[in-house]
């Protein structure tokens, strides 16, 4: 409930012309949104604000798409085959060696380093995308 209301507040932020209130709201939400608040503080145009917010919201989708692409390439899947975020690597025909290769490919694509422990827990596209977002965020914060 709390998270839902925070998200909806964040969604309407670009339409409010109250910078002080905006930053106060943003700091209470997740760290990925703090990046956005920095952008707002610097840019004065409301149009820019909206575009930044779109980037923030679609990042998840972009990551998933990128993961899907890499998985397709790694497993040499035909273009007509369907890969959804919930697709399990195993059901796409990947064995454990393929999974290692996929994770290595993702590491290079996103410039991150996946620890061995967590890489063995990845079995779906969505799980991979979630982990990547977490690691990219951590890297940006460091």
């Amino acid at each position, binding site marked *: 409930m709390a998270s839902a209301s925070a998200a909806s507040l964040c969604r309407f932020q670009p339409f409010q012309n109250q910078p002080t209130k905006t930053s106060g709201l943003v700091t209470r939400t997740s760290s990925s949104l703090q990046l956005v608040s920095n952008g707002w503080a610097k840019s004065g145009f409301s149009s820019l604000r909206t575009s930044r917010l779109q980037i923030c919201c679609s990042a998840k989708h972009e990551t998933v798409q990128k993961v899907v692409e890499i998985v397709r390439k790694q497993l040499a899947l035909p273009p007509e085959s369907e890969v959804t975020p919930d697709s399990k690597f*195993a059901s796409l025909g990947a*064995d*454990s*060696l393929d*999974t*290692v*290769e996929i*994770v*290595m490919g993702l590491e*290079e694509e996103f410039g991150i380093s996946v620890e*061995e422990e967590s*890489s*063995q*827990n*990845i*079995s779906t596209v969505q*799980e991979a995308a979630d982990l990547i977002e977490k690691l990219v965020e951590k890297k940006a914060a460091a």
Partner: protein
Amino acid sequence: MGASRGPRLSGMQKQVLSLYRGFLRAARAKSAEDRQQIESLVSSEFRRNAKEVDRKNFLYIEYLLRRAKKQLDQLRSPDVVGLSALNVSFSQTKHPTN
């Protein structure tokens, strides 16, 4: 939650996967051409053994693990350019050329 994610792997399987990762990591440090060669060689070798070696043949798997660890240590050295020495021994066993 942990159990529902992916297959449960034995300690030995984890060791093998960790070695595979290690080889692919080590290959990244080499030149593009060598890297590709190392990757295809390592990949085919792991896959061949995964298919051919009986999963209960622990002694042999342990031997392969020990051997691979030594090979990986050598490959990690920046002086080692590629897996050509290994490649020769593999190709000799498969199709003797000289």
